[in-house]
């Protein structure tokens, strides 16, 4: 077995490379191809022992020089070694042994320490600064393609051709790859300075593009469309890279309305992610628009972004396009005049001229006043902070902010963390989470699980805050949330666990004219609630949200729902128990002409934690008071019943005496509402008890209902029960 080493050289000093080869190599044929090198350099090489020098007075290009060397070599395995490489300290021939090792498999055709990916060819290849090739490969597929001269791309081409001929192209035995100035390839004992020759050639960039085009035409039809790998061209059946997928999935959950314009739309693959929209895409490149039309239909138009006659859209999307325009910043501001919501991305804080087709650099949030900024990592993760190289700046303007409002009391170490975790991990997370602590005002940051949850929220771009309530009830907190500037408020109680896509589903329903949307709120293990069509007049007001039913418009919602704040206020007359607060609130929204929707797919689990809770005000009078407020509202709404109202401001014994008349009263009246001091007297009876205060609000006149006055006025001398009978029957 014989090894030949072919080292083409042009103007670069080859001597350091050769010295290292001499030092760490034995028994190999060394061929140096002086490829149009200056005469002094050639003269020096002529006198160098241990090499075979092949002289070409004119430059042959990299492939041409290599081919000459290979043709003059005699080895069974030929090593191609760039002249800007240095072999590092090692036992003699270790580098050759490492290159040779994979050839124990007869199907291996090429080995080398560095495997690369060619985007133009959409193929992997060995970088030819150091590669060992079995002679049989040359015999089978010929030499390097000299049409790639002076260089770049020929190695990709050769590797692809070798693989097409059945040879395996594998890496030599190396450890991890570490870029350090030049290249040190794992434990492979070589240093490659890199591009010492070709990068200095006149017109190198043009050569690179020309050869990339050659690879495209030969191996990858999408290369042309991708604008030399700058533009993501993704067809209907292609895998979308994580970052591209992430930004369109993000956009899909934030677009406002249905009329959407995308500028710089490329292949139109946005349509794979944006559903139920009236989409129009523009791009200046006719080729990519033609491709887009073939892939996704007739939604696309060739247009110059700066000359385009913009109409009005609900949402405009500008992903990876502003940086290509000299006036990208100004355009971002101009587009605000043509839409309600603008979503855009660009490279974050990119070095100037990193790529020549980017006109703008160092774009940061301050470059785009008025936009909310987030970041996407190369892996597609969205966060509030930049995440390493290749971070993309993700911006939105006019995006409806969703605030999640979680009132809590006494559940700090039970269900509240579960609720927050479920909220933060939504497929479409809220933009803000406000915890309304109406209990002990704990510093949640001192509790480890909350530290983790808050960190997670921040990583996901969710701001959070804790607001301390004064114990006066969650409706006070909800009222505060209405003034926090959000477009939508999502109410979630501190023992409710929304399934992961609840907010995304609710938002989809939150169109114009919709005031609130709520899904099923189910108790694990509990049977379904009674059927309901969500009318305010239903007896006992069963809620459609107590079971999974059909999507429908309703007149009131229960417990957890998404709503548009600012339409009506929460009822401040309610007690801290805030019983019926959501029924009153949502029905008032309904009465303002807004739709309330029950959406069965947005399921929330209600754990009904017996400990704590925002409504854990045990005084029964709170509940009776609130029931009275509710009855009053019902009367206001013209939904009152023909019920009998009784007002009992008296002792327990009087309540008991009156209670014996309840069957007679119920026989005469459809409903009996008793404003009283001892509601427990009426336990088990079909009586609605409310507080005395509510009784007054409902219209009861205490004087009229005062049985003692009634008896005094009549000089009464018969039993009390008969006085009650006289008063009410």
């Amino acid at each position, binding site marked *: 077995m014989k090894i030949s080493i072919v080292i083409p050289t042009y103007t670069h000093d080859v001597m350091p490379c050769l010295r290292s080869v001499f030092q760490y190599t034995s028994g190999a044929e060394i061929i140096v191809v002086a490829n149009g090198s200056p005469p002094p350099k050639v003269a020096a090489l002529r006198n160098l022992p241990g090499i075979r020098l092949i002289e070409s007075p004119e430059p042959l290009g990299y492939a041409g020089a290599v081919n000459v060397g290979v043709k003059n070599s005699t080895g069974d395995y030929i090593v191609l070694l760039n002249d800007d490489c240095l072999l590092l300290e090692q036992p003699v021939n270790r580098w050759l042994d490492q290159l040779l090792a994979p050839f124990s498999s007869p199907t291996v055709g090429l080995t080398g320490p560095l495997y690369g990916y060619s985007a133009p060819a959409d193929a992997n290849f060995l970088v030819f600064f150091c590669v060992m090739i079995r002679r049989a490969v040359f015999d089978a597929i010929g030499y390097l393609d000299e049409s790639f001269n002076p260089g770049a791309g020929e190695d990709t081409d050769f590797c692809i051709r070798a693989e097409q001929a059945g040879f395996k192209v594998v890496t030599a035995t190396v450890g991890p790859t570490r870029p350090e100035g030049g290249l040190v390839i794992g434990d492979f004992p070589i240093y490659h300075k890199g591009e010492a020759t070709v990068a200095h050639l006149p017109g190198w960039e043009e050569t690179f593009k020309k050869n990339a085009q050659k690879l495209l035409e030969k191996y990858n039809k999408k290369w042309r469309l991708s604008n030399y790998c700058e533009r993501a061209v993704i067809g209907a059946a292609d895998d979308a890279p994580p970052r591209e997928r992430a930004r369109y999935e993000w956009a899909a959950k934030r677009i406002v309305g249905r009329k959407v314009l995308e500028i710089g739309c490329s292949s139109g693959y946005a349509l794979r992610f944006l559903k139920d929209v009236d989409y129009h895409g523009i791009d200046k490149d006719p080729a990519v628009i033609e491709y887009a039309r073939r892939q996704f239909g007739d939604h696309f138009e060739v247009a110059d972004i700066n000359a385009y006659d913009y109409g009005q859209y609900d949402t405009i999307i500008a992903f990876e396009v502003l940086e290509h325009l000299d006036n990208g910043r100004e355009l971002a501001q101009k587009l605000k005049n043509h839409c309600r919501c603008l979503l855009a991305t660009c490279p974050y804080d990119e070095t100037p001229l990193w790529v020549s087709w980017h006109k703008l650099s160092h774009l940061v949030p301050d470059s785009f006043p008025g936009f909310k900024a987030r970041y996407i990592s190369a892996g597609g993760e969205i966060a509030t902070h930049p995440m390493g190289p290749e971070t993309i700046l993700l911006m939105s303007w006019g995006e409806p902010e969703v605030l999640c409002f979680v009132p809590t009391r006494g559940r700090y170490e039970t269900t509240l963390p579960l609720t927050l975790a479920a909220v933060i991990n939504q497929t479409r997370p809220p933009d803000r989470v406000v915890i309304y602590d109406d209990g002990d005002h704990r510093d949640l940051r001192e509790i480890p699980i909350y530290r983790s949850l808050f960190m997670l929220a921040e990583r996901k771009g969710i701001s959070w805050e804790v607001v301390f309530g004064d114990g006066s009830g969650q409706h006070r907190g909800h009222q505060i949330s209405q003034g926090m500037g959000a477009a939508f408020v999502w109410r979630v109680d501190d023992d409710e666990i929304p399934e992961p896509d609840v907010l995304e589903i609710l938002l989809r329903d939150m169109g114009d004219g919709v005031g609130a949307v709520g899904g099923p709120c189910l108790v694990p293990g509990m049977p379904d609630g009674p059927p309901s069509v969500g009318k305010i007049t239903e007896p006992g007001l069963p809620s459609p949200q107590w079971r999974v039913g059909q999507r429908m418009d309703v007149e009131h919602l229960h417990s957890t729902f998404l709503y548009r704040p600012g339409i009506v206020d929460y009822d401040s007359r309610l007690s801290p128990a805030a019983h019926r607060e959501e029924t009153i609130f949502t029905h008032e929204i309904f009465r303002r002409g807004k739709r309330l929707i029950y959406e069965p797919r947005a399921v929330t689990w209600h754990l009904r934690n017996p400990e704590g809770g925002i409504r854990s005000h045990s005084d029964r009078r709170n509940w009776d008071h609130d029931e009275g407020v509710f009855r009053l509202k019902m009367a206001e709404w013209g939904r009152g019943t023909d019920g009998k109202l009784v007002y009992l401001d008296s*002792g*327990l*014994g*009087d309540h*008991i*005496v009156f*209670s*014996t008349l309840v069957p007679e009263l119920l026989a005469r009246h459809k409903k009996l509402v008793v404003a009283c001091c001892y509601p*427990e*007297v009426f*336990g088990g009876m079909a009586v609605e008890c409310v507080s005395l205060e509510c009784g007054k609000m409902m219209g009861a006149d205490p004087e009229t209902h005062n049985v*003692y*006055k009634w*008896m*005094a006025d009549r000089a*009464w*001398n*018969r*039993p*009390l029960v008969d*006085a009650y009978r006289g008063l009410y029957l």
Partner: protein
Amino acid sequence: MKIIISPYSRRLRNGNENPKNYPFWDNVTQKLAGHEIVQVGVVGELGLVTDFRPNLRLDELRELLKWCDTWASVDNFFQHLAWSVGKPGVVIWGQSDPEIFGHRENVNLLKGREFLRANQFDIWETAKMNVKAFVSSDVVVSAILGFNHDKQIHHEG
């Protein structure tokens, strides 16, 4: 006998003791020694017997009424509760009129109508305690022990 006593009416809003309260309960309970007596009421009231059960719920009181042979109370809620479940007992009256605030099914012990307040419907804060307005403990004990005899309004003296 199994007897429930409900000795007190609630304290007045001005802080005074309720004039409906019977002043001789000690004598009654001493004379009933040997009988099984349960006292009901609220926390803070003076316990007259060993078995004092304060703050029972209404359903618990109803259960207790099923257990007893009879009961005795002043003009308070207990007489109404017992009446509402059909369990007759003894009520000790002073200044309030059993014809209005009592139930005929019970033994209503009224010393005399001359002790009744002129305005039966006035608030109790205006009234004063009058120990002379009540029957003696012997009468009460007798009514309790003879409960199965005539049930009528008893006028003493």
